[in-house]
């Protein structure tokens, strides 16, 4: 949302660059990546993964988009709010979702050390091989969108979800 200065809110920033226009072939490949990911990933779970990775990577634009998409798909406000503390609110989620969230964190925070065997094993116990491959693809894809969003400082607040949240 856009606020007048008189509201006391700081003015909205502008993006650093329009990367999709400057690099259209890259953008096209990113859309292909997104499409390939979506084909094998449960939409509700995918939004939870996207929100959690976007929280870890501090991508404001991505949080704006994916919380709205999740709500539009019927996700509960409570499950979205609890997401950044899921370890302490496990009963809000299924075992499968918890395993996916744990894997999301491990793959997102690589700089602090690998993907532990127990995390990988828990995910492998909940997801069949093809599903697990798509889950890893999904985590990688949102991490990529996060990097474009943060580095080019895309502006949050303007996203409007489609009826069935089909944007990236």
């Amino acid at each position, binding site marked *: 949302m856009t606020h007048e200065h008189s509201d006391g809110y700081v003015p909205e920033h502008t993006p650093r660059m329009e990367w999709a226009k*400057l*690099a259209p072939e*890259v953008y096209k490949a990113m859309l292909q*990546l997104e499409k390939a990911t979506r084909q*094998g990933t449960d939409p509700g779970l995918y939004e939870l993964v996207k929100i959690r990775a976007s929280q870890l990577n501090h*991508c404001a634009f991505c949080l704006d988009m994916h919380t709205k998409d999740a709500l539009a798909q019927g996700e509960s406000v409570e499950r979205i709010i609890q997401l950044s503390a899921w370890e302490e609110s496990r009963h809000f989620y299924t075992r499968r979702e918890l395993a996916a969230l744990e894997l999301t964190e491990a793959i997102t925070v690589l700089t602090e050390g690998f*993907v532990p065997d127990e995390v990988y094993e828990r995910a492998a116990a909940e997801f069949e091989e093809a599903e697990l491959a798509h889950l*890893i693809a999904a985590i990688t894809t949102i991490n990529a969108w996060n990097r474009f969003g943060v580095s080019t400082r895309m502006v949050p607040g303007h996203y409007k979800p489609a009826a069935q949240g089909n944007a990236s």
Partner: protein
Amino acid sequence: MTAQPRTLELPTEFREAMQQLSAAAKRGLGDPVLAELVMIRASQLNRCAFCLDMHLTVARKAGESEARLDLLSAWEESTGTYTDRERAALALTEAVTVLTEGFVPDEVYADAAAHFDEHGLAHLIALITTINSWNRLMVARRIQPGGPAWT
């Protein structure tokens, strides 16, 4: 302790899209020497053994010097080893790779923008994003180094 390999194939269409992303980013940047330095530095930060093996091999075969490869993880203290343009790109690589510790600082972005035009900068960001993606795909599936003979 030996790391147990995991065997998991990437979905075909996803892998193909990743290859398109790589090709588009590298083509747009148009600087293969810099591209390898960026990809090696990101792979160091993300601790991707497969990616380090691949990109160090490719860089050596392309004639990159041992000194520039050896000092890459200490590039800030290695004055005279890298150009100002390369240093700006490496600083941006680190900022975009380590997002979990907080954003991409204005001064890092501004320094990169002083050395690259918008088109180049957009593709540099794309390349950093791409290698970060490969790092994730390889580390998560624990793909081992020492694979094919890189050309």
